[in-house]
């Protein structure tokens, strides 16, 4: 047993230009960014205000940044895959099978676990406590740990690019292919440990938000007065709490098979690989609703705000959301109709899968009726929402089609299936988080994003998506199965070339999004959000300054109805001034920043890496370090800091003054309009 376990110099792909140079490029970029941060002296600020922050707003922003960076990585994988398939007609293409298999596995893993999940969780982090009218989530330090563990998982996945390899089984490692006999390398281990680590983080998030939404709300905020986004966040986090332990258990079983020779899923010793299918999809299906439900919540917020109307059918939406939440646990077998479970079982799960389409359809109609009779403004978030409705209607339709078992018998694992899930994930989740980050960006940073570039990004993404994935449906109906490194069917080629073009249109969309951020930062003074309410919003997050102070609200709001902020605003506009007098300012206790999350993740990365490479002494060190971190955290005497009343007063008065000025200005304008009409 060597000191470094299985790790040797051969783990670094010196012979393979693609991973070598891309890895080198990433390292160079990271070093350059680090050097810039150090040279400008930003490190103390970053450490104090962001890395050790337990503020949900900061943590949420970091989640979204992680997601955005990983979107670029996953998208590069997508470009590589499409290019390989465009080239590899009766030709080897540029990616040998061992690489191509890693690329599509990494693409799926990164997009689901390190783009979609962090983006959705990030937005929930920023928004939910503000919408609930409270100061933070239930467990702020745990929140920080959750984020850093997710980042640790992302780091491990990306490390596999330069040290070792990633798994080659697809984004879900079905046995026996993922067992030691057929995947002897470290790829599957990288995958499993990265997801176990980030899975702990996600589970902690689920516990955190369920507790927050059920136990921490502003006075007077009954369940039926919560914003729709909080309802969908609740449903999503309940699903996280219920589903992620299944993922943890299943990956643990696979790891036990691989590391210690257990026989859960092996092809000898009595192992049952069908068990893996059932377990992993019992997690996998709720997972997609974990992603989709908050996206639906974002649409509810955006559509009602930009229609200047309350959400239509609020209670109906609650029923629909909780119905989706519960039924999502009863449909998992539709991912393997072709495993031969028999007609009775197949049709029951097929019908259950179709039943989920009912509450989803109800939601779409409720958004439609929200717009009906309102004043629709076509801001960028609204465009994303309308684009979503159109795109998702088709994607959902193909999903119901796949839920008919005999149809699935001819479409399973084909490009039709791949087009379907890209349709719904991009159409619902990605469009949703794009709408969400533009909508809540001013709240987090104090200025809005450039509208023109935002609209360009939307149109490029919408057109690019259909150009890239429309052909997927066609070529799936021409018998093309997924994950092919090369092929010899002439009819598929033109469609794959069209798909390739689509990916480049999306690339332009991404460039527009990056340009939007760069340009917006440079010209931010022109789009300052002075009052904290740039969109004429309806819920409590818009009653705070942009960005809010660390304590969110000087005094927790008293909630008497749904859309409490809209009521406040309506009355204020009537009387031309703020409705509530200046409150009695008191000092506020806020949780103290702590490096616990960052240090825990540091030891998690060490432990994960050591486990992957079988460096057992390092595993022990990593675990001891993690335990020590916990003990140090548990031993601290001061876990809160006091914000003095004067500071609270100063920040709150500034926002009140800005809002009063805006109200007065509005009053003046209305009076002059009335005068000019007379």
């Amino acid at each position, binding site marked *: 047993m060597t000191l470094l376990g299985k790790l040797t110099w051969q783990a670094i792909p010196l012979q393979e230009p693609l991973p070598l140079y891309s890895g080198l490029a990433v390292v160079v970029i990271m070093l350059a960014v680090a050097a810039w941060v150090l040279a400008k002296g930003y490190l103390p600020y970053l450490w104090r205000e962001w890395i050790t922050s337990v503020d949900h707003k900061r943590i949420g922003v970091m989640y979204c940044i992680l997601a955005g960076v990983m979107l670029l990585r996953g998208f590069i994988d997508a470009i590589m895959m499409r290019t390989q398939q465009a080239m590899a007609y009766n030709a080897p293409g540029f990616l040998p099978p061992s690489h191509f298999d890693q690329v599509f596995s990494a693409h799926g893993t990164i997009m689901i676990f390190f783009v979609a999940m962090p983006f959705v969780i990030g937005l929930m982090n920023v928004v939910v406590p503000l919408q609930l009218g*409270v100061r933070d989530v*239930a*467990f702020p330090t745990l929140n920080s740990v959750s984020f850093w563990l997710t980042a640790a998982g992302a780091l491990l996945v990306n490390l596999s690019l330069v040290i070792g390899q990633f798994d080659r089984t697809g984004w879900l490692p079905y046995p026996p292919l993922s067992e030691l006999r057929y995947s002897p390398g470290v790829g599957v281990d990288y995958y499993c440990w990265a997801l176990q680590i980030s899975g702990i983080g996600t*589970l902690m998030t*689920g*516990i*955190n938000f*369920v*507790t927050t939404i*059920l*136990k*921490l*709300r*502003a*006075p*007077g*905020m*009954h*369940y039926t007065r919560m914003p729709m986004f909080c309802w969908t966040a609740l449903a999503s986090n309940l699903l996280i*709490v*219920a589903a*992620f*332990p*299944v993922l*943890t*258990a*299943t990956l643990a*079983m696979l790891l*036990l098979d691989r590391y*210690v*020779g*257990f*026989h*859960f899923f*092996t092809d000898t*010793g*009595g*192992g*049952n690989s069908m*068990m893996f299918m059932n*377990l992993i999809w019992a997690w996998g299906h709720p997972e997609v609703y974990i992603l989709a439900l908050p996206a639906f919540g974002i649409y509810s917020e955006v559509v009602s705000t930009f229609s200047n109307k309350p959400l239509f059918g609020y209670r109906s939406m609650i029923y629909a959301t909780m119905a989706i939440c519960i039924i999502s646990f009863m449909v998992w077998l539709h991912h393997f109709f072709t495993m031969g479970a028999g007609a009775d079982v197949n049709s029951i799960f097929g019908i259950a899968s179709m039943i989920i389409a009912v509450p989803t359809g109800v939601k779409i109609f409720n958004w439609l009726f929200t717009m009906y009779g309102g004043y629709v403004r076509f801001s960028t978030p609204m465009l994303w929402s309308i684009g979503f409705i159109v795109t998702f209607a088709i994607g959902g339709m193909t999903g119901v089609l796949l839920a008919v078992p005999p149809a699935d018998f001819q479409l399973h694992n084909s490009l039709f299936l791949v087009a379907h899930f890209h349709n719904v994930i991009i159409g619902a989740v990605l469009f949703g988080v794009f709408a969400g980050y533009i909508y809540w960006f001013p709240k987090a940073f104090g200025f809005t994003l450039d509208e023109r570039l935002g609209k360009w990004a939307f149109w490029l993404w919408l057109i690019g998506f259909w150009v890239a994935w429309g052909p997927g449906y066609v070529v799936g109906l021409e018998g093309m199965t997924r994950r092919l490194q090369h092929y010899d069917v002439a009819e598929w080629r033109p469609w794959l070339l069209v798909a390739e073009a689509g990916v480049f249109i999306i690339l332009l969309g991404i460039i527009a999004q990056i340009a939007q951020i760069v340009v917006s930062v440079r010209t931010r003074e022109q789009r300052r959000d002075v009052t904290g309410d740039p969109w004429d919003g309806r819920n409590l997050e818009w009653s705070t300054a942009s960005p809010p102070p660390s304590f969110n609200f000087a005094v*927790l709001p008293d909630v008497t109805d749904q859309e409490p902020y809209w009521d406040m605003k309506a009355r204020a506009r009537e009387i031309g001034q703020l409705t509530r007098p200046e409150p009695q300012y008191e000092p506020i206790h806020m949780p103290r920043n702590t490096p616990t999350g960052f240090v825990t993740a540091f030891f998690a990365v060490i432990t994960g890496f050591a486990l992957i490479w079988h460096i057992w002494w390092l595993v022990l060190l990593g675990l001891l370090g993690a*335990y020590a971190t916990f*003990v140090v955290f*548990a*031993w601290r*005497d001061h*876990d809160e800091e006091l914000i003095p009343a004067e500071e609270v007063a100063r920040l709150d008065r500034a926002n009140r003054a800005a809002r009063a000025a805006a109200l007065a200005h509005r009053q003046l304008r209305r009076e002059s309009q009335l005068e000019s009409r007379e």
Partner: protein
Amino acid sequence: MSAPGSALRAGSDPYHIGHAPSAGVPEYTGHGAGGPAPKRIVVGYGFWIFILSDVILFSCFFATYTVLIDARNGGPGPRELFDLHNTAIETACLLASSFACGMTSLAVARQNLLWTEIFLALTGALGLAFIGLEAHEFFGLVARGDGPTRSAFLTAFFALVGCHGAHVTAGLLWLGTMMAQFPAKGFKQTIRHRYLCFSLFWHALDIIWIGIFTVVYLIGTITP
């Protein structure tokens, strides 16, 4: 903090579960409409949700066990393997440790350091006895060649019972840390909340053990 045993009024909250108004705090209805719940409620609730997620983790191992119970690979089954006497003693140790844990909770409520440490030590000793017996059983099986690599059934058995054992071991580590924390930090609110979570954890593990010895040991040895 009112002493236990004071007269119960309608709407009073002697055990601070959080359903009655207390001075200075708006009426906490338990439905979130009185403002954010008190810290003790929030901590306990959150930990309870964690325990529910842990139950789901165990249910995966239970499900796998019942699926793989007949995959013997020509090897022994439950009847040949399990010694119910050993299981009975393990159960007694664990149940007794739960009782000791309950006594510890009372001592913590009274903020009595001596009895807290004594009952914690007792809880730990009984828990350690449980782990010792279980480890003895496991090593015995491995030595006979009936370890987890022998068959899928044994894999599932070792994983399910081992998962519980791993949780108990982690609990013992936590217990040891608490035994150090009480003398060092006293009965501060955070320490008491932490102990609340530990006791929830310990009792939950006991409940899961009842599931395990019923499904695995009792039903396994009774059915042919």
